[in-house]
């Protein structure tokens, strides 16, 4: 399994947000994580890339216990997990192309050596003409597509997306979904956290997806009621 949560619990500020959550993400699988706002979707994603550590249970990513990693090991692991953050998290003083290439730069692979890949990736997300734009100049859809491009530039094994269609219109959300489905067809494991059930319904015709729902602090497999 690429990511495995075993009886994971997470408490914050004296309250329990997640309890006894167990789930495994197999290579090449596609998952939706849904639930009402504040249910703990973002928290669960953060547990998967080590931004948070569980207060109970164990999280294993690539067979490594996240609780046992030192800071450098965690940095190395994050290079294999692409994350699309809800608020995109760009560096506003750098042009878009450099923001997208940031994982390459920090890993020491350099941007120039990967220029061809970068151009191809920017073309794939439809942002070739916006390479020199600064993040504050981008629309919501452009930001989300750029965040997706940055998440996959290191060719990660897993892509985690937190509300990737939260700030875009229907057409753009379909375009983003299509990009994520394409990634899955390339063999990437995809986990999308969303409260948008229409997105999940739209995906059913394109990909074999497992839908996980956070309810009452636990995680359940959602059925045909979606």
């Amino acid at each position, binding site marked *: 399994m690429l990511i495995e949560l075993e009886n994971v619990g997470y408490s914050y500020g004296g309250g329990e947000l997640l309890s006894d959550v167990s789930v495994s993400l197999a290579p090449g699988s596609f998952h939706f994580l849904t639930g009402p706002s504040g249910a703990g979707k973002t928290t669960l994603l953060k547990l998967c*890339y080590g*931004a948070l550590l569980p207060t109970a249970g164990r999280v294993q990513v690539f067979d490594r216990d996240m609780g046992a990693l030192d*800071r*450098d090991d965690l*940095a*190395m692991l*994050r*290079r294999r997990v692409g*994350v699309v*953050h809800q608020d995109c*998290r*760009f*560096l506003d*003083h*750098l042009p878009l192309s*450099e923001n997208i290439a*940031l*994982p390459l*730069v*920090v*890993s*020491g692979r*350099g*941007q120039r050596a990967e220029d061809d890949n970068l151009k191809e990736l920017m073309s794939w997300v439809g942002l070739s003409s916006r390479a020199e734009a600064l993040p504050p100049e981008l629309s919501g859809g452009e930001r989300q597509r750029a965040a997706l491009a*940055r998440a996959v530039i*290191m060719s990660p094994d897993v892509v985690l997306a937190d509300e990737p269609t939260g700030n875009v219109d229907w057409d753009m959300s379909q375009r983003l979904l299509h990009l994520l489905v394409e990634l899955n067809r390339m063999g990437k494991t995809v986990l999308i956290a969303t409260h948008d059930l229409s997105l999940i319904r739209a995906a059913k015709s394109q990909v074999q997806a497992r839908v996980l729902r956070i309810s009452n602090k636990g995680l359940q497999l959602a059925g045909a009621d979606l």
Partner: protein
Amino acid sequence: MSNGTIRGLLLSDKQADRVVPPTGFTAQLTVFVAGAMAFMAVFALALSLASGRLADRWSQELAKAATLRINAPAEQRAAQTETALKLLRQTPGVAKARALSPEEQAALLSPWFGPDLPIDALPVPQLVEVTAGEPGYDIAGLRLRLSAEVPGAVLDDHTRWREPLVDAANGLRRLGLIAILLIGGATAAMITLAANAALAANAQVIEVLRLVGAKDGYIAGAFVRRFTLRTLIGAAVGVVFGMIGVMLLPAASDEGGFLTGLGFRGIGWGLPLLIPVLGAGVAFAATWAAARRRLKELS
């Protein structure tokens, strides 16, 4: 920290340096503080070296010299002087003994009585300059023999006023060195503050870098390089101005005494050049420590 880590932190990485946005105010502050501290360090170093030279010179020159004063009636003075000189020449450890001529004695008194002093008409004691050899002579034994054979002779080995002078010069040297240490400490404190301010201002940048897989060393390196370079440049400018200031001080002269000897001599002129290197080292260590501490707090 290994040599590889230090090299990695210092080697230029333009892409990494671009990742952290420029911080105008802290940059100017760091350069200014480094320059001002280096400027003061040059003077503290000059003071320390000059006092050291003075202490050594006084210590060496005066340690070997003594003065024999023969207070005798005018008619006995020449005989007692001759006896004293004979006794001194026979004393083991005395390298040289010489009676000062009337002209030399008049010259010694001229600062107080003027150049035309009729020294023969005054009851001025005869002075004998005694120079010790290696090893020196037994002062207590010499005094005993002089008191027995030359009743009017008083031996002054300068200890009474030599020691306080040498102590004062050594004290100045210590103060200069303490000032240099304090300047180094103050520089480290200021750079730590500036680095902390820069790290706090860039907390979001650091968080993004961590999320995309940057190691702490990579992030810290961007800050360490920046602050080390700024300190090096600021300190180099401060040292140049400090050295110009020292060069413009009056040259050493006997008339000017200690104040005109404040400066560098020979290889000493090379010592201020170490200040920017040491300053950069201080900045490197201070920024590295601040960055590591701050990074652990941030994510």
